[in-house]
């Protein structure tokens, strides 16, 4: 019951955020210098044809009406028509490319967790040791790592020098997809490591001095049992939020990483749209990425509240 109330409260906070997001995306059109109708028709267009296009695009109406009609169309899944590919609807263009991006995000997150947990555990197990020092150097070196450059380096080392993995495209069939997603996902995971290792190590150190860990040790439980069975469970709960925030960051880096690997996902589509000055597609992708982040944050908060009763009481 209490949890249901929390869920309802949390869902209500989505309304202003989603309205704000759509408004920012709508405003992108207004930021562009010059008249979009002139851009579409070319500089030699007659004033009459420009005015006609204005009417078609709704640009002759007041700003709030333009926004409401944008919002109304967006809610019906109508995100406009591509400038670049005349007549192709933006939603078909974007949703058709969603699969590789979702693969990339999920597998990338999986790699990030698989690499982070053991490193943070080893590091927190003996603070101040040489291993700990080595693990703590990772964030220092890793903070300035451009994710796309990591991708280029992985292509160089694992794709071209040692030819064990494909370096571009999404492949065919399930096995093809898996093979093609490894390097891009690893790229995205490596770029996330600095933040994840730091946060999990810090919360492990915090948890390890708490009373219940002392009790667990006093009971004579084995070191690994205390670390994994008791400490990680609590430190992990705290890290769920960090993970959620990072996922937002990770989603943002897919644009450049998909370009590196020519992976035909939404991010690569955004890159193509930028090259083609295709505003409706850029708008739609910005909107979809933001909605994705909002959904991830929602799930993170709901998971956090389910795992930790203190959250929903607060």
């Amino acid at each position, binding site marked *: 019951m209490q949890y249901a109330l929390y869920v309802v409260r949390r869902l209500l906070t989505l309304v202003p955020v989603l309205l704000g997001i759509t408004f920012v995306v709508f405003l992108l059109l207004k930021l562009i210098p010059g008249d979009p109708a002139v851009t579409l028709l070319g500089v030699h267009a007659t004033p009459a044809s420009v005015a006609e296009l204005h009417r078609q695009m709704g640009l002759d109406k007041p700003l709030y009406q333009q926004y409401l009609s944008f919002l109304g169309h967006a809610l019906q899944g109508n995100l406009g028509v591509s400038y670049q590919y005349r007549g192709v609807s933006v939603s078909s263009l974007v949703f058709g490319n969603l699969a590789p991006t979702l693969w990339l995000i999920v597998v990338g997150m999986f790699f990030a967790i698989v690499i982070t947990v053991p490193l943070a555990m080893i590091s927190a197990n003996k603070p101040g040791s040489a291993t700990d020092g080595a693990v703590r150097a990772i964030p220092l070196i890793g903070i300035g790592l451009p994710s796309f450059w990591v991708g280029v380096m992985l292509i160089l080392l694992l794709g071209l020098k040692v030819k064990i993995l494909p370096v571009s495209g999404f492949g065919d069939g399930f096995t093809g997809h898996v093979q093609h997603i490894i390097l891009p996902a690893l790229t995205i995971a490596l770029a996330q490591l600095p933040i994840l290792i730091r946060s999990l190590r*810090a919360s492990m150190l915090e948890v390890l001095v708490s009373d219940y860990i002392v009790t667990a040790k006093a009971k004579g439980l084995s070191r690994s049992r205390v670390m994994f069975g008791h400490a990680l469970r609590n430190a992990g709960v705290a890290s769920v939020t960090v993970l959620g925030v990072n996922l937002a960051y990770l989603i943002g880096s897919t644009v450049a990483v998909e370009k590196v690997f020519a992976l035909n996902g939404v991010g690569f589509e955004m890159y193509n749209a930028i090259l083609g000055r295709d505003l409706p597609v850029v708008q739609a992708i910005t909107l979809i990425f933001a909605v994705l982040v909002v959904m991830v944050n929602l799930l993170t908060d709901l998971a956090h509240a389910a795992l930790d009763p203190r959250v929903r009481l607060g």
Partner: protein
Amino acid sequence: MTTLPAPLPTFDASTIRKRSGERNITLYAGLTLFALIVLAAVFAPLLTSADPLQQNLLQARLAPGSPGHLLGTDDLGRDVLSRILYGARVDLRVGVLAVVTPLVIGSILGLLCGWWGRWFDTIVMRLVDIVVAFPFYVLVIALVFALGQGTKSIYIAISAVGWVAYCRIVRGQVLVAKEQEYALAARASGLPTWRILLRHLLPNVILQAIVYAMSDIVLSILAIVTLSYLGLGVAPPSPEWGSMIAEGQNSLLTQWYLATIPGLCVVVVGLALALIADGLVNQFNKR
């Protein structure tokens, strides 16, 4: 709710390792490294005589270590070392300057939100929620796309997104600080609000924002490099690390160093600023 990704922690117990009186090696190492990088960028003309834009097809694709070209030449025969050094000028300048506006605007808004609260705080915090809903790179890319390629657009885009982090940090600090005795005393003695905010609260709450600014510079350099890699940043043929990586990627098999060196430069700048941020945290915790 959510917090912004902080690439470096601000104040956590695990970073306290210096006893008071001990030299802050981390801070000095970071400052020295950063100073060396800045000096190399400023005195680029003295360090290399080669023109970063000068093409010479007869001398194209020389390997690093060739006479006259310490780091070799690219596909068009331009000297890589000089492009790296002149590129540092662009990336460092834009990276540092892009952080100034968000630091100032975000801190002021954070001060006012924490102090006033009420409707002002509610409105600003709703704005914050909206900005953080966008993935950082996606919003910056979309804004630069709309505003048009170039450094001016980069400044505007990073400012429009970046103030949020400072606003949250300073607001949180003010909420704690305004209940402390010195703030209550300043209020009780009837000082004007602006004076309490600027002279009493600001010096106490700004430290954490400045520590964050160090990692934020790295973030904004990463943003510029990424934008240039995607063709939205600094226009070619100006030397810039991100576009150098993009050009180098085309000849990865034959000249691996063309894409590798600029990336390493970004990593070293990141390392220097991370050390400074860590050192600052140590310094403040010592007091």
